[in-house]
């Protein structure tokens, strides 16, 4: 049974990691925590479903339209209306604003889209593989693969492109970056658009399993938050490691003990990890600002 538990745990971890990447990305590029990250996933999924309903038979068009909508609304509009006015005004106001946006997305989804869970058509082929005596749905393999690919792409973006380096400079010291000639506003906008696209990608991969419901982002966002902290908030590969740890510990605890206190076990393990390595497993110790 252990191989199955590990395989499923890793697959679950891949899901958390994909959402956690958004947390790390925004930390690296804007030094902020977006508590609406999970709900961005919800919004993207709902957007795709609504478009699909209006474009029967044109599923890929609806998906692409969903990505575009996400980039515009969850990226550009969100940045212009909420992020830009609050960046640099202290850590908490912006973070709290993302919390309000999270709640708003949930309310709008429940009231104006649907209070009931809806199925989400799978974009990727189904079927199962048999790996090491365990059953692994092909879609889970895709999720893990896409997550790994996303880590690679984002790391490359941040480390080797001019835009990426500009993003990191702006995050570390906005004023200095401006003095050096970087258009801070545009750079941050780019970061949020990338984050929105990441959320849409996560939605496409995760929604077929999770079904689309107005509060699907709550648990996902929380678990992804744990994953990001465990991996070290400032490390993209760390988010993957963190996600896998959360997923595996969850699955193993479910098998080993009565389910009622399972989340407690997971948290105790995470807390122990943090007390052992306060900067997270792969993170670099950050100077306290």
């Amino acid at each position, binding site marked *: *049974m252990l191989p*199955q*538990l590990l395989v*499923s*745990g890793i*697959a*679950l971890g891949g*899901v958390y990691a994909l959402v956690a990447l958004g947390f790390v990305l925004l930390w690296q590029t804007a030094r902020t925590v977006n508590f609406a990250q999970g709900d961005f996933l919800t919004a993207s999924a709902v957007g795709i479903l609504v478009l699909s309903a209006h474009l029967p038979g044109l599923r890929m068009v609806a998906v692409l339209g969903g990505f575009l909508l996400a980039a515009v609304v969850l990226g550009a509009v969100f940045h*212009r*209306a909420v992020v*830009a*006015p609050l960046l640099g005004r202290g850590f908490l106001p912006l973070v709290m604003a993302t919390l309000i946006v999270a709640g708003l997305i*949930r*309310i709008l989804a*429940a*009231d104006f889209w649907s*209070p*009931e*869970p*809806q*199925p989400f058509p799978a974009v990727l082929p189904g079927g*199962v593989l048999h790996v090491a005596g365990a*059953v692994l*749905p092909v879609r889970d393999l895709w999720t893990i693969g896409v997550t790994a690919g996303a880590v690679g792409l984002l790391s490359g973006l941040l480390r080797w492109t001019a835009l990426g380096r500009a993003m990191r400079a702006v995050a570390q010291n906005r004023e200095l970056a401006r003095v050096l000639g970087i258009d801070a506003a545009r750079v941050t906008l780019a970061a949020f658009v990338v984050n929105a696209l990441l959320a849409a990608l996560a939605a496409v991969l995760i929604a077929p*399993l*999770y*079904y689309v*419901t*107005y*509060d*699907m982002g*709550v*648990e996902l966002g929380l678990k992804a938050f744990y994953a990001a902290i465990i991996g070290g908030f400032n490390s993209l590969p760390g988010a993957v490691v963190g996600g896998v740890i959360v*997923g595996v510990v*969850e*699955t*193993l*605890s*479910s*098998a*080993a003990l*009565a*389910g*009622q206190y*399972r*989340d407690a076990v997971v948290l105790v393990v995470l807390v122990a990890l943090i007390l052992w390595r306060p900067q997270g497993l792969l993170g670099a110790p950050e100077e306290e600002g």
Partner: protein
Amino acid sequence: MTKRVWHCVLAVGVVAGLLGGGALPPGLGQASPVLVGVVAELTGPGATVGANWRDGVLLAVKEINAHGGILGHPVRTTVLDTETQPPVAAAAMRRIAGDHPFVVMGPVYSSSTLVAMKVLQEASIPEFVGSEDDRVVREGNPYIFLTSYTAGGFMQQFTRWIVTHVRPRRVAIIYSNDAFGKSTEASFVADMKPYGVPIVADVATAVGQADFTGELTRIAQAKADTLFVTSHAPENARIVKQIRTLGLSVRIVGASTLMSSDTLQLAGEALDGAAGIVQEESVAPPFRALAARFKAAYGRDPSHDAIKGYLGMQVAKVVATRVKSLEGRALAAALRGITLTPQDDPGILMPLHYNEDGSLDSEAFSVRVAGGQFTVTGQIPPLHPALFVRR
């Protein structure tokens, strides 16, 4: 520029909020309207059940008004959100009590019902709730009326059915670790004891959980031949799908959260072969016509809670008509021990009986899923058939 936009939002919002309520338009028609308060979970985790409850109540009100209202008065509704939080539910209940409705419909969550029922009791306003927990009817409140069996009552029916029809030798249960799942599990375990069938695995899951490998592993290791799946629709659908993916051979049984159209829509063919009993589901014969009307009005099948809301509203109307009064004490007194049938009023979709404690008794139906569709396989008598005999 952005700041100015937000200033405008602020101004518009304040105006909209404060003036939006204002004076509600006077009732239509000659007679003054009667007020029905609808207090339900419209946001928060309970939105799925509360929104359905509200839609069922509102459909009933629409139909009642189309047939002349209650005692000649048109029915008006005020809908208040509890945000799935007991302190907010308490506020909403106090607010609605101040408007003097003749009856309040809701909430559905037992915790919200428990926190606020005294408010209505003190105002002598009858309350029809979607709650099912036995605790609700044990508080000695003469104004509270359920719209279904209690969880305990349902489990009595369920365990009797499972032992006689499914004849399991080793049963397992997987349930959600919240008020609904835990009370179902407690009643199930207690009611199965006299039948002597061992419960080999008893597994709790978190609400919103997506992967059940750990839980299903334990169930497989316990070698259960029958699994009672009683979480919420999305989790149930995922559990059932994973059972198929993992290749577990176990008979799947369940009640209203499993054998419902929303679970079927999510689980698809993975649900084939599942069986169970339901009291108020759109698949059951008495509710098919309602389901069609509900679908025409809202574009989806009515859930368990929608049917409860509809039924409760219709019962309120019928009893008010019978006692020719809208006065709370008279209504509450008349409701206790009442037996109603479709002959009394077409809105009463099935024969039902209100017990002294406010719980509802009626027949139930056994159902099965085959080929992606529900089929009704039998009828199950009420808990106390003798009470249904009319004097």
